[in-house]
């Protein structure tokens, strides 16, 4: 309403907060408006959840049928003669590496991201 310069007009702010009935907890608001909206970060987050679920599910990680597998590397045995690099072990290592990599990427995009306790930042080495 451009009706002159009357300074007595009402503020556009609604009278003191008739708070919405369901107040979202604080972290949900950040969730709704924050960096999590970035589609790239969302994709990384969902992949991270997927991997974490797989690792914790206890299900076989490498369920490719025999014919679809590529050749295994030479077996490695520990002192007791038990094979270390089993198919399962290698699949788990692979997922773990991808997981660490994803966490690194999320941190790069969102420095406020608190990585899980078992995350180790990549060592800077040659």
């Amino acid at each position: 309403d451009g009706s002159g310069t009357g300074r007595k007009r009402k503020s556009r702010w609604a009278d003191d907060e008739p708070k919405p009935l369901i107040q979202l907890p604080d972290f949900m608001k950040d969730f709704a408006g924050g960096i999590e909206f970035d589609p790239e970060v969302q994709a990384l987050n969902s992949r991270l959840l997927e991997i974490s679920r797989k690792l914790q599910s206890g299900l076989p990680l490498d369920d490719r049928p025999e014919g679809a597998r590529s050749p295994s590397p030479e077996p490695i045995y520990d002192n007791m003669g038990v094979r270390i690099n089993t198919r399962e072990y290698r699949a788990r290592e692979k997922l773990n590496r991808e997981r660490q990599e994803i966490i690194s990427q999320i941190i790069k995009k969102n420095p406020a991201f608190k990585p899980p306790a078992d995350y180790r930042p990549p060592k800077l080495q040659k």
Partner: protein
Amino acid sequence: IALQRFMLQPGALATKVLCLTQVVSVDELNDDDDYQDILEDMRVECGKFGALLNVVIPRPNPSGEPTPGLGKVFLEYADVESSSRARQGLNGRKFGGNEVIAVFYPENKFSEGEYEA
């Protein structure tokens, strides 16, 4: 567990700059009187939460080019305590019928005059 961890994370880090989204319409910003009114409303109301240093409301470009941050209002406070209080107090409030969403905005971007994100 991963999901829980994810949900428990604190949100984006608090900064001294607050960004209110979905606040003002292009029409209002085009009208000089309305614009001044809005500016005044912001100064008065948002100044209640602490020392408000600066209010920036991007306006439409006369040439018709898109303006970064159009529809948003940026509030710069003297300290994080004030901006945090303001965020708490303003988030979810209505301004001219629009429900305000208040989020922290990176200080470096603000000081460089970048308002797009």
